[in-house]
């Protein structure tokens, strides 16, 4: 992790923190809570964690890409659109990665 504070022992803190935390989340009910039911409203929020966090992470990377110095760029926007549409239509992760990569590659080669 060159050039940041994670260029040393702090990286290991992150790795072990994520390892422990991820195991903790996976073991929480199986090991600790057991069969006790969770309140419905908690479950309802948990159902949306992945679709609520990942788009928020991606949106700034797409609109202000680091590679262009933060300038919005049509080729990258089109590539993301191709990925999104392919994923929505085919429900296939590998196909949508390929679609995005092909559009990005072609777009950058042609411009």
């Amino acid at each position, binding site marked *: 992790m060159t050039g940041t504070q994670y260029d040393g022992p702090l*990286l290991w803190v992150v790795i072990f923190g994520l390892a422990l935390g991820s195991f903790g989340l996976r073991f929480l009910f199986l090991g600790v809570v057991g069969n006790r039911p969770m309140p419905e409203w908690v479950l309802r929020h948990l159902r949306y964690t992945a679709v609520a966090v990942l788009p928020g992470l991606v949106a*700034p990377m797409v609109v*202000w890409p680091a590679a262009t110095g933060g300038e919005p760029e049509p080729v990258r926007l089109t590539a993301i659109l191709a990925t999104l549409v392919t994923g929505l239509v085919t429900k296939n992760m590998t196909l949508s990665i390929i679609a995005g990569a092909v559009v990005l590659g072609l777009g950058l080669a042609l411009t």
Partner: protein
Amino acid sequence: MSSPTSRSAFFLGLREALPMALVVFPFGMVFGVVATEAGLELIETMVFTSAVIAGASQLTGLHLMQDAAPLLIVLASALAVNLRMAMYSAALTPHFGQASLLRRALIAFFTVDQNYALCAKRFDGPERLSLGWKTGYFAGTTVPTAPFWISGTLLGALVGDAIPEWLPLDFAVPITFVALIAPGLRTGAHRGAALVSAMLALAFAWLPYNLGLMVAGIGGMMTGAQLELILERRKLKKEGLA
């Protein structure tokens, strides 16, 4: 794990999970390549990927570290992506609650999206399955997932250096993430949550310490939960009229 029932369940699980390897392996490669590009040593990348076994979470952590975000934000954001694992754990508990603590710990460690989805489909069917059968089936579904994830990362990390400079690797992460989310946007509630999250992240990008992502995550979850309630109520009303 040695009775004939659990053995046949193991091979059934293995067979049904085999296509997942085609998704897990390339995704593992992406993490290996991106981690190597970010400057991680081979040993760091491999411990990271084998101890966490959660691609989206690992890429989130990696990206925020590159952004030099504070430690707490890195951990909180990457773990937030993994909150769904707590839900999987809750859903598996009625099936494995009677297993030994060691087995429950092993099952927890190897739970990922793909093998959870297969188990959920199998276990909630009409058949009554024994604990031995379920354990065998889970073990079978784990073989094409976690090991392929880890070996994919290894290959990605090894070839990462050989990838030419002009390739737009910066965009591997957004493309992978969108490909990961899009197939899961099944309902209006899912799509609403994703849309609100993206818009909040852009609107609050000016917040320090990547706190905009926290706003986006919480806002997206609340949107999803509320939309689900509204859509359910509307459906009930429609059925009441029919």
